[in-house]
């Protein structure tokens, strides 16, 4: 049973590159490719396991699409965001809106297939950069006007895990360091994502990004 993938990317070159990567992987099946937000909305009722989408679409921001997908609930497909630079604001806004990770646009198509499959199995749920971005987000919150929110948001254990992941520890290394199972690491990561998405500051950050205050 192959996982259904939809690509939302307005640049045909990149869309084709990513499409090749998806199709090259045994576990993935490319259902559709669209270049607009409207086109993507038309595909939301399909049974989809993974969205790979660009944030800068001609008729809106991919952030909106992420929020709409997350608002539907139900099966909760995985979402990966395509990024040129993998920079902090883009990735953090996507993650806080509900994305699971990001792909650099220029990586090898074989890597695209692999990373997409990893995202589906939850094998590599939190890359060092995402962990670091989340930590910075929390640090900024603590230095902000409501300093307790950053502390209260995540448990000390989750912060510890983020610090290890941001240092480049693999899931296995982090599990050994914290003396917990890799399965528990996965649970922690899910919990971190869930908490980030419901936090007010996360929403504010996403809104700021969408309204163009932050760069794309």
């Amino acid at each position, binding site marked *: 049973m192959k996982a259904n993938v939809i690509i939302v990317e307005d640049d045909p070159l990149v869309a084709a590159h990513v499409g090749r990567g998806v199709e090259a992987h045994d576990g993935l099946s490319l259902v559709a490719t669209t270049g607009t937000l409207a086109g993507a909305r038309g595909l939301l009722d399909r049974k989809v396991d993974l969205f790979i989408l660009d944030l800068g679409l001609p008729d809106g921001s991919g952030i909106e699409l992420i929020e709409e997908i997350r608002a539907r609930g139900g099966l909760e497909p995985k979402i990966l965001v395509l990024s040129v630079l993998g920079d902090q604001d883009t990735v953090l806004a996507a993650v806080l809106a509900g994305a699971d990770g990001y792909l650099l646009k220029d990586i090898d198509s074989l*890597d695209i297939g692999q990373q997409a499959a990893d995202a589906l199995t939850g094998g590599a749920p939190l890359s060092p950069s995402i962990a670091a971005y989340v930590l910075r987000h929390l640090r900024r919150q603590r230095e902000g006007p409501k300093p307790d929110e950053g502390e209260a948001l995540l448990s000390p254990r989750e912060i510890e895990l983020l610090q290890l992941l941001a240092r480049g520890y693999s899931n296995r290394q982090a599990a050994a360091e914290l003396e917990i199972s890799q399965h528990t690491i996965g649970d922690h990561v899910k919990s971190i994502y869930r908490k980030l998405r419901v936090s007010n500051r996360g929403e504010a950050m996403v809104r700021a990004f969408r309204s163009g205050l932050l760069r794309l």
Partner: protein
Amino acid sequence: MNLPRLTGWRRALAIILGAQLLFWGAYVLIVAGLQPAGTLERYRLPAARVLLASEQGKSSAFAAGLSGPALLRIPGWQPVILYPARASLLTRDEAVTGIGWSFACLENSCPKAATAYAGPFDRMNKAADWEKFQRFDMVWLVVATELMMGAALLVLLPVNRFSRLQGITGLLLILVGIDAWLTTFGAESLPYVWFPLLRYGTEYLMLTMAALSVNAFVDWRPREAWAACGCFIVVFAILLGTMIAGASFATIVPWLDAITLTLLLGYGVVALLRMGRTAPGPAIRVLAILLVALASIAFDLFLLPPPTGFALQASVLAPPLTMFGILFEIALQGHRLNQEAGEARSDLERQVLEQDASLLRSSQLLRHQERLIAIDAERQRLLRDMHDGVGGVLTHLLLDVRENRLTAPEIELGLQSAVDDLRNMASAIDTGNEPIDEALAMFRERMSGRLARSGIALDYRCTLPIPAPSLDVRRLLSLYRLLQEGIANAVRHASATRIELAVAPSDNGAVLITLSDDGTGFEPDGASGAAGEGRGLANMRRRAVQMNGRLDIESAAGRGTHLILAIPTAVAAGRKA
């Protein structure tokens, strides 16, 4: 209610008339409430004896204006002793005969105003009570209120920052109370030879204090204060002299009274006139009070029929009401002073606020300019960074492609390094001043995928304590580029299969970053083996210098290459997460 605001003489007239109205209103209220109805004239002895004989109920006698006990004899009645302000019961006794009646004081000669009455007990008792109220209770009331108000003024002195007017007025009120007591009861309570000196000494001291009070009220003049004190000393010396000479005070006191009261009144009028020029409001209020006092004395002298004397003497009521007036005046002045102080304070506050605002404006301007300068510096830095990295790479690539010197894989490699450099710049901008362990983990994340695809493992190890120190944007970008160059060398020239990036603390607070590979290695001394490699090493050393760091290159043929970079860092204190 909004009264029209009166000004000028209308206002003065309104104040004066208002004070009179208040005083006489209070007077009428008290008299109407307390004075027994009707007159005692028909009970006056000796004419009342006829009436007395036909009296059915209890009869009694009463003498108004007594200073001590007096003996009353009426034919047909037992002799009875009358006391001041008290009615005494009369008992029939037919044995006492004769047609004459007599009324004689027991201690001294009776005062001229002393008049005896006889009649029904109720009527006499009421008359006696009224006299008691007028002559004794009222005085006690005056004494008590004056003493209390005086004491209150003195106790509250610190509140008004030891106002001279308040202190002197407090002393004046206390002296008025003492004088009232001495005048009414002193002779009986203090039957000593020196009592007159005490009594009149107190009285003139009180008048002196009144003069000082006026002085303080209109604007303190030390010379006038000394003059008032001098007058008191002269008067007291005269009293003392009289005392020692054994002469009676009765001869000199009226003269002294007349002189001192005239002086005081004259001084008061002069002072008020002087004050009226600068502060008409208070002067008019004091004038109103003085006029009330004068009116009450005139009323007593000319209008109140002396023989009956049953109406309340207005001048008895005047002092307490006058004192209330003075207290009101003091309270009003205190309020004014407070208001002025408040206005001065808010004025000061406004000035401070304005200065604050202008300081804020200039500091905002300064901050704005600082920001502009910082943005400008940042822009120049960005331009320099683009020259130094991606710009140079793309230019070389362009020139090489134009001259058809490059194969497709070489072009891809060049473009890849341009994109890598862009990512390094973006990451340095994002990650500057963040912990260095996170920054290097992200660098490794960026590089490892592609290296793995080429069969090269990139390991990363960090043994820095958490929180790790941080580098600023510039130094971080230099570090990224140095490492990028090192990895490119390892891949291109050394055919490495394993690269290790290790970060460790060093003894002197610096951070040691080691990039090791298992490639072919080279002899650093003769690093001119390949032109590209030589340029790469020079570039790396330059970047190490940009970071204030030191780069050691350890390599030998067949033993791989170790780049050891020591960077001094300031430990980012206070970071936790």
